[in-house]
């Protein structure tokens, strides 16, 4: 799959490891080949998903004809090599390494969180360390609490996995090594930010040094039942395990060797709708409400199967089915596919992380899709990728990976897409004649002025792509909700078709992608409505505040569709005593015993497979290949490449707000999670405050799409420009009613009262 990965482009080689003949390709390390062939080589610092660290020396092997011991995690295998992974000298070497690790290591396995799954414990036993000959003067190393995670330097073995994850994977770059011989420690240089992404650094820690603060000392690892699932928050569908004991989720872990979870997935797990019992009166009312409904409006935080049930109900009862974000995405992808001829975008995350140039357009990537941002970060760290970030607002959180920031005017996305297509398709010979004419006819000077994107910026962009291989383009929901979304989609699609870009159209929320593929959505609701996780005349809610309770996504089985175009299973982590959507469907004459009976019925025409739920795999193999669910099959659609004139750009003057949640907040469900504590405040720069005549600490009310917001305004000194960030994660059942373009002019009323604005003198 990964065409750009130099590892896979090597020529075939054969090596012998412990007498076993192993076929592989050049470019792989001895350790990788051994693991591919189920040969065990002990490691302490090796983490498959980052570059070899080489700090432990446990992975030493002997190679015939080479003096001394070789680090198998770093050394590439050469054709014909004969390798021994274990003999008494190697054992002794490894035993001594373990003895050194054990010097002054506190004897606190009895209380340590890691006990039972600790690499140090395991390898100390494995290498028979029953006496200690080494010694060093111990030092006082107090525990440090960094917020989401805490660090105990006394337990740290300085393997550096956490630092590498924070740098190469999540890209928060918060953890650093403070060198000092035996006194070396890990330091958090961005403690004040309290990055939830550090949860991933804690996950890879082989010992109990870096742990989740909330989980610390609450349970032994062996008491917890691991329930495999997929994170439902952002549409990433990342692999995760709920770790459960006595009907409570204690923590979330993952297959950290190969996959990554963002802070929301890791810490946002306690949103279950608890203490629900069956209320037949409410249930009957719900059934009646469905019968009489003119529209069903729902939030995209549902499973594929639930979406399927809603679609079946629509077919039977003929109501309108409305889910704004998913609908916008559906229309965007429909337009997109008329150019590419395939119903899905071609991109995937693995290829993204192998790219040498990445363009990000119309998405605040760090907030909207952490997992996509992590893959861009990997490309930046491993491929030294050029990252061109195009957005009306600069984002200081990603300035470490962005090599070129191109700021455009709010609302000018169509023009920007046209400029991009024009620049990147210049001189391209595959382009059809009509398209060439269309591109040549574009008034570049005018567009560039209207979008406020300089031609020299585009030239620089173009130049920086020279001599690079592997291009990715990531687009997001600023485009889907744009009034000219369909035209933008076609322009973006040109880059997939003609410029060889790996394009990812990041799903806007929750399972919006699954919903957009399964449901036949309508543009707007009318008449009597039933809302599912949305306020309606009759409301079904997994948040516990509706007319009938529904299970939250960690209380039900089902599948999700992810940004990687994969259909992945979720399992029940917590019990639920009430009615589910399938019960309503049964009462309405659409019969199925379980919700997951719909898994094999998902539309094959949209790339789903007829696999039954219980047959879906959930694992990574020894080489790190993902076997979770299945990949959506690409479907052909008729091609119709007609592009319209670029429309005049409507000017957004004055104070503008951008709908955007804080990092690692996505929905009312993450908002319900106690470990993710974010204030729903409107954040703006000093410039914005001046433009809107606001002061830090003012409370304002305003309306977007008929939904009224009350917000405390705060000045963020790291921000620039006249656009403020307006979160929606706290809006509960109203959050998914928003349907317009993400930017809007701010027309507000100040509602400061004496009690609130007491600090402005």
């Amino acid at each position: 799959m990964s065409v750009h990965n130099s590892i896979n482009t090597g020529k075939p080689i054969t090596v012998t490891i412990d007498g076993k003949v192993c076929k592989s390709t050049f470019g792989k390390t001895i350790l990788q080949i051994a693991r591919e062939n189920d040969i065990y080589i002990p490691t302490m610092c090796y983490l498959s998903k980052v570059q070899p660290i080489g700090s432990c020396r446990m992975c030493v092997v002997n190679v015939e004809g080479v003096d001394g011991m070789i680090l198998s995690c770093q050394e590439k295998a050469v054709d014909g090599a004969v390798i021994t992974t274990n003999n008494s000298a190697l054992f002794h070497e490894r035993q001594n390494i373990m003895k050194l690790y054990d010097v002054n290591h506190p004897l606190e396995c009895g209380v340590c969180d890691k006990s039972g799954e600790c690499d140090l414990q395991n390898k100390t036993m494995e290498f028979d360390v029953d006496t200690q000959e080494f010694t060093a003067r111990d030092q006082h190393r107090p525990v440090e609490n960094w917020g989401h995670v805490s660090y105990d330097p006394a337990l740290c073995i300085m393997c550096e996995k956490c630092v590498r994850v924070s740098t190469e994977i999540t890209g928060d770059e918060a953890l650093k090594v403070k060198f000092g011989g035996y006194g070396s420690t890990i330091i958090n240089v961005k403690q004040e930010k309290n990055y939830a992404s550090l949860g991933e650094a804690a996950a890879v820690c082989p010992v109990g040094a870096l742990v989740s603060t909330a989980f610390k000392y609450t349970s032994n690892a062996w008491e917890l039942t691991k329930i495999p699932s997929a994170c439902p928050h952002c549409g990433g569908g990342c692999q995760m395990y709920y770790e459960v004991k006595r009907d409570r989720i204690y923590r979330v872990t993952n297959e950290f060797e190969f996959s990554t979870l963002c802070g929301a997935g890791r810490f946002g797990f306690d949103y279950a709708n608890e203490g629900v019992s069956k209320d037949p009166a409410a249930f009957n009312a719900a059934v009646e409400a469905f019968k009489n409904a003119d529209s069903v409006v729902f939030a995209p935080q549902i499973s594929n199967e639930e979406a399927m049930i809603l679609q079946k109900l629509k077919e039977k009862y003929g109501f309108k089915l409305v889910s704004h974000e998913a609908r916008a995405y559906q229309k965007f992808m429909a337009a997109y596919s008329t150019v590419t001829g395939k119903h899905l975008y071609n991109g995937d995350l693995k290829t993204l992380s192998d790219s040498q140039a990445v363009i990000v357009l119309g998405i605040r990537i760090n907030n909207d899709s952490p997992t996509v941002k992590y893959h861009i970060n990997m490309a930046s760290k491993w491929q030294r990728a050029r990252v061109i970030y195009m957005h009306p607002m600069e984002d200081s959180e990603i300035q470490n990976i962005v090599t070129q920031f191109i700021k455009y005017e709010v609302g000018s996305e169509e023009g920007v897409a046209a400029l991009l297509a024009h620049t990147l398709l210049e001189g391209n010979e595959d382009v059809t004649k009509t398209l060439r004419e269309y591109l040549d006819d574009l008034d570049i000077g005018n567009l560039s002025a209207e979008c406020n994107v300089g031609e020299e910026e585009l030239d620089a962009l173009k130049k920086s792509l020279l001599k690079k291989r592997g291009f990715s383009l990531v687009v997001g929901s600023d485009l889907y909700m744009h009034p000219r979304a369909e035209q933008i989609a076609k322009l973006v699609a040109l880059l997939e078709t003609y410029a060889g870009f790996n394009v990812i159209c990041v799903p806007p929320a929750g399972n919006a992608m699954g919903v957009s593929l399964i449901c036949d959505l309508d543009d707007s609701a009318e008449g009597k409505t039933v809302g599912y996780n949305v306020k309606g005349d009759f409301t079904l809610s997994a948040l516990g505040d509706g007319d009938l309770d529904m299970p939250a996504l960690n209380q039900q089985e089902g599948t999700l569709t992810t940004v990687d175009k994969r259909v992945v299973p979720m399992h029940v982590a917590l019990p639920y005593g009430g009615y589910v959507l399938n019960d309503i469907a049964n009462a309405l004459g659409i019969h199925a015993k379980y919700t997951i009976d719909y898994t094999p019925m998902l539309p094959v025409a949209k790339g789903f497979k007829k696999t039954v739920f219980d047959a879906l795999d959930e694992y990574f193999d020894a080489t790190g290949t993902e076997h979770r669910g299945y990949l959506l099959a690409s479907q052909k659609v008729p091609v119709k490449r007609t592009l319209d004139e670029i429309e005049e750009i409507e000017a957004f003057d004055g104070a503008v707000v951008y709908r955007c949640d804080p990092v690692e907040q996505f929905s009312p469900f993450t908002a319900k999670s106690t470990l993710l504590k974010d204030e729903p405040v409107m954040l703006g720069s000093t410039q914005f405050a001046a433009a809107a005549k606001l002061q830090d600490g003012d409370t304002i009310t305003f309306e977007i799409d008929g939904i009224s917001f009350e917000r405390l305004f705060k000045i963020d000194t790291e921000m620039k420009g006249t656009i403020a960030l307006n979160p929606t994660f706290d809006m509960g059942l109203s959050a998914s009613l928003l349907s317009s373009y993400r930017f809007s002019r701010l027309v507000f009323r100040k509602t400061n009262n004496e009690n609130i604005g007491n600090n402005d003198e």
Partner: protein
Amino acid sequence: MGLEQFKNRNVGQQNYVMLDLEHTPETGMGKFRQVVRRTFKAELFVGLWVTMREMINALFKGQMHTVKYPFEKLPISPRYRAIHEMLRLLESGHYRCIGCGLCEKICISNCITMDTRYDENQRKEVSEYTINFGRCIFCGYCAEVCPELAIVHGPRYETASEQRASFSLFEDMLTPIDKLNLQQEYDGFGAVTPNADENIKKTPLAY
């Protein structure tokens, strides 16, 4: 690491004594003679005298042998496994349990349930600890596995209760702080062996 050293508990000394018993007669005549001898020896009165002596001793000399259970109880072997006790550290008075959860894990009848938390002093605190004595089979595994000699078997063997489930809380089993001076070190199941010192290997120190 072998287990031999752990198996050598050196508990108890065996001092057997042979009793001097007369031979059992084998012939019919021999049996007859034994009966006649015993009949005319007036052994009945020997027995009555013993009873009389004990009565006098009990009533007038204060040497009563009856144990007035339940007001009095006989001492019981340290290896007897009765209702659990939670011991405290003698120096600080803090409870010994570190919340490692090994007793909970090993318990064969799943009757130990516990919860722990991270406390203000950065210690692992036992926030919840119960044993359901209705289920406990007094196997002693918990006392044996405990690395801190915190959970031990006490001498209280009455386990009758009104309900099948009968829970004891941590506080119920913990040595009362004002009786800390009376806390007995435990010699039973899981206690350190008398020769533990000999088995210790020293760790080198840099200073």
